[in-house]
C-alpha cells in the first residue's frame, strides 16, 4: 500500500515539476475548442447542437496525446524494472500509475470542461451532465490507454500506434458520453447513459490493470 502511494506521489511530483503533460492535454483541449468556435461560430445554433460531440471528441484526443508517456520515462531510466521487482502486484502498480496519469491529464479536462462548454455554446442545462459523464469517462479512457501504452512500449511511432489501438475501445465511451451529455437537453433519463458509463468504468477498473500488467511483462522480457 505504501508503495502505491509512493508511486502516485512520485509521479505527481514529477508531473508538477515538468508540467508538460497537463499543459499538453488541457492546452489541446482549449485550442481545439477555440478553433471549433471560430470555425462554427458563424452559426451559433449549429455550434450548440454539435457542442456535446465536439467536447467529447476533443477530450478523447487530448487524453490520447499524453498516453505515450505513461510508462516511457520509467522504461527509459530503468525504474520500471525496479517497480516490477517490488512485492506489490504489478496490477496494483498499473492502477497507481493510471491514477496518477488521470490526476494530471483527466482531472484538468473535467475542470476545464465548463469553460469549454461556454466557448462552444453548450446549453448550461447540460453542464452538470457533462461533468458527471466526464468524471466517469476520463478514468476509463486512462485505464484503457494504459493497456495501449504498455503494449507499445519501445515501439516505433508509438504515439500514433497507441491512438490506433485504443480507438476501438474508446468509441463506446465516446458514444455513451455524448449521449449522457445530451440527455440533459432532451429531457430523457440521464441515468441509463450514466450507468452505462459507470459500468464501463468499473469494467475497465477490474480488467485494464491485468491487461496492462500482462502487456508490460511482455514488454520487458
Amino acid at each position, binding site marked *: 500500500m505504501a508503495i502505491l502511494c509512493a508511486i502516485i506521489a512520485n509521479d505527481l511530483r514529477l508531473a508538477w515539476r515538468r508540467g508538460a503533460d497537463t499543459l499538453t492535454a488541457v492546452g489541446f483541449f482549449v485550442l481545439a475548442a477555440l478553433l471549433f468556435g471560430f470555425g462554427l461560430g458563424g452559426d451559433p445554433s449549429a455550434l450548440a447542437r454539435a457542442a456535446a460531440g465536439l467536447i467529447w471528441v476533443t477530450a478523447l484526443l487530448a487524453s490520447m496525446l499524453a498516453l505515450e508517456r505513461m510508462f516511457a520515462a520509467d522504461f527509459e531510466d530503468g525504474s520500471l524494472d525496479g517497480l516490477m521487482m517490488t512485492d506489490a502486484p504489478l496490477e496494483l502498480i498499473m492502477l497507481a500509475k493510471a491514477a496518477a496519469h488521470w490526476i494530471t491529464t483527466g482531472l484538468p479536462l473535467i475542470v476545464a470542461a465548463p469553460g469549454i462548454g461556454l466557448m462552444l455554446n453548450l446549453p448550461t442545462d447540460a453542464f452538470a451532465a457533462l461533468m458527471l459523464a466526464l468524471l466517469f469517462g476520463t478514468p476509463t479512457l486512462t485505464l484503457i490507454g494504459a*493497456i495501449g501504452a504498455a*503494449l*507499445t512500449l*519501445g*515501439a*516505433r*511511432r*508509438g504515439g500514433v*500506434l497507441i491512438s*490506433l*489501438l485504443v*480507438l*476501438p*475501445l474508446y*468509441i463506446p465511451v465516446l*458514444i455513451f458520453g455524448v449521449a449522457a451529455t445530451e440527455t440533459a437537453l432532451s429531457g430523457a433519463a440521464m441515468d441509463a447513459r450514466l450507468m452505462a458509463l459507470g459500468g464501463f468504468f468499473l469494467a475497465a477498473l477490474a480488467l485494464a490493470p491485468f*491487461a496492462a500488467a*500482462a*502487456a508490460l511483462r*511482455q*514488454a520487458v*522480457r
Partner: protein
Amino acid sequence: MLNFLANPARFMRIFGPLLPWCWAVAVLAGGAGLVLALFASPADYQQGDSVRIMYIHVPSAWMALGAYTVIAAFSAIALVWKHPLAHVVAEAAAPLGAGFTAICLVTGMLWGKTSWGTWWVWDARLTSVLVLLFLYLGLIALRGAFDDESRGQRAAALLALVGFVNIPIIKFSVEWWATLHQPASVLRAGGPAIHPSMLWPLSLMAVAFMAYFAALLILSVRTEIARRKAEALIVAGRRQS
C-alpha cells in the same frame, strides 16, 4: 496434440495434403454459389435484384468475425502454451480478416444505398464492424512496430485478446440496439428464417470463403516454415565463415 503439431515438418505432412482439397472446395462451392446467386435464385420481393449482394456481404461478414476468432484463439494458444506456430497463424490471418471486413463494409454500403437510401449510418452494427477493421489494422501495425519480432508477436497476441470483446458486440448489436441493419436471419436461436432457394447460395459462398481462407492460411504457414529454414541456414553459414 499441440506439441505433436509443433514440429513444422509434421505440421506440413498433416495440413499439406489438405491444401488441394481446400482449393477444390473453394472453386466448386464458389462456382456453384455464384451461379445460384446470380442466375438461379429469386429476386427479393421488396429489394429486387439488389438482394444478390447479400450472397457476398453476409459470408464476408461471417468470415470477418470468424477470422478474428481464429486470431484470438491462436493468440491465446501462443501466449499460454507458447506453441511456436500459433503466432504464425495469427499473423497470417490478420490481413485476410481485414480484407473480408473491407468486403463486408463496401458491399454493405452498396446494398444499404439501395435498400435504406443511404451509404452509411452510425448505428451499432456498422460502427462495430468498422471498429473491427481498425482492430485488424491495429494488429498488423502493432506486430510490425518492433525491431524484435517476438516482442511484436506477443504484443499483437495480447491486443487480439483484449479486442475480442468487440466480437459479441458485433454479433448482438442488432438485438441490443434499435438499428437500421436487419437482425439475424440465419445464425439465430430458432434456426434459419430464410428460404432454401436463398440459403443454398448463401451457404455455398460461405463454405467457399472458408475453404479459401484455410488454403491461404496453410500457404502462409508453409511460407513461414520456409523463411525460418532459410534464416537458420543463413545463421549457420555465417557461423562457418
